[in-house]
């Protein structure tokens, strides 16, 4: 029987290894799998490459993972957000690497990784410093830059509902990077607020087909990052 539900976050992240590449869903706090990230901090894996749009805020979630020096390199589009101090400090000291990628190119590189497309051409960033050193080519008189797929060993993703096949739906703009990250990671690990029976999710409305998901853990009331930050909380607490 196929059953992707695991009992707790510890079990969900137990095999994440040093040096792994991990995609983490979320745009700001929306869709950020904060409980899975905290479990990863407890688990101890280090030298990680993290693919995520931002770098977290305060000292919880992704920012806490970075603060604990577990992250060797960030691949992201916008490392500088409100209340993000951890990444900027380490970056200025030269203690963390940054690969800055335009947001749409980041999304498309992840989607390509999941779709078996090793590289593609995009007009984004042509003529800017972010295209420097990259191959360009002209199609129909317009110049495009070649970008490579990004794949990951793991994805940590937040969803609203899941079933035992791993089918997922998300909540509003918390959907953001989750669906494509599930496709691009060898092992997609999902925290969902609700676990439902097979068939409870309308087959016309499934956003992430279960084939892209390896593990699901139920987190009924996920923490809200901005509240934790406002309360000056730090993980581990």
């Amino acid at each position, binding site marked *: 029987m196929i059953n992707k539900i695991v009992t707790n976050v510890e079990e969900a992240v137990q095999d994440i290894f040093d040096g792994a590449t991990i995609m983490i869903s979320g745009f700001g706090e929306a869709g950020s799998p904060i409980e899975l990230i905290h479990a990863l901090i407890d688990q101890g894996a280090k030298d990680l490459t993290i693919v995520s749009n931002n770098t977290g805020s305060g000292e919880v979630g992704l920012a806490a993972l970075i603060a604990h020096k577990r992250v060797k390199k960030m691949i992201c589009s916008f490392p500088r957000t409100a209340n993000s101090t951890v990444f900027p400090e380490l970056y200025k000291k030269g203690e963390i690497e940054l690969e800055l990628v335009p947001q749409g190119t980041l999304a498309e590189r992840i989607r390509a*990784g999941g779709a*078996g497309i090793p590289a593609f051409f995009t007009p984004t960033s042509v003529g800017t410093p972010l295209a420097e050193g990259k191959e360009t080519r002209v199609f129909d008189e317009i110049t495009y830059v070649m970008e490579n797929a990004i794949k990951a060993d793991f994805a940590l993703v937040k969803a609203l509902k899941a079933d035992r096949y791993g089918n997922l739906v998300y909540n509003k703009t918390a959907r953001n990077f989750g669906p494509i990250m599930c496709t691009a990671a060898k092992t997609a690990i999902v925290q969902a607020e609700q676990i439902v029976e097979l068939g409870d999710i309308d087959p016309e409305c499934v956003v992430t*087909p279960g084939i892209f998901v390896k593990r699901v853990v139920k987190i009924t009331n996920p923490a809200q990052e901005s509240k934790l930050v406002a309360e000056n909380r730090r993980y581990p607490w």
Partner: protein
Amino acid sequence: MVNELKEGWDVNQMAQKVALDIPDGSYVNLGIGIPEKVAAFVPEGREFIYHTENGLLGMGPVPAKGQEDPELINAGKKAVTAIPGACYFHHADSFTMIRGKHIDVCVLGALQVAENGDLANWSTGEPGAIPAVGGAMDLVAGVKTIYVITKHITKTGEAKIVKNCSYPLTGKAVVNRIYTDLAILDVTEKGLKVIELAPGLSFEYLQSVTEAHIFQ
């Protein structure tokens, strides 16, 4: 006696052999024709999820007569059903599953299979024939394990397990295992290894109806 040997397994037995080799929890794509029969033989205690590349994961059995829905079909354009936990998606997402190596097993028919795993199953290359490829080339390029299920020789007595395919290729060195009415063969670095012979059949007989070199 020789005639009996030549018959080997019937199509259902071949399909059952394939099904027995598919691990529990696999995502499986079944090609059109004989491969479709595999679905009838899911071993006790295992759960497979069937993908059909026209846009359904969780394909269920054929509907009861009169219950067919012309908008719920499989890649062979036949009416199917959807199981609880199924989902629908568009073609680009469907082939993300295939090309992105998310499907575990694909079972395909063949015109020819070569000893290095080359597969020809979409065109005889005859002049004037209408070529039609469908998803076959995507499946062999993207699915982790490719099983071929086929008669060992053609109706006119020609070898289908060959040294080199004479028909246009579907993919190069893509087949992992071949299930015929006479034997099960693994594609290995050293060539085609006989894993199982149909009852009463000799290795020598199998080699005599196989153009490719085989070994035990």
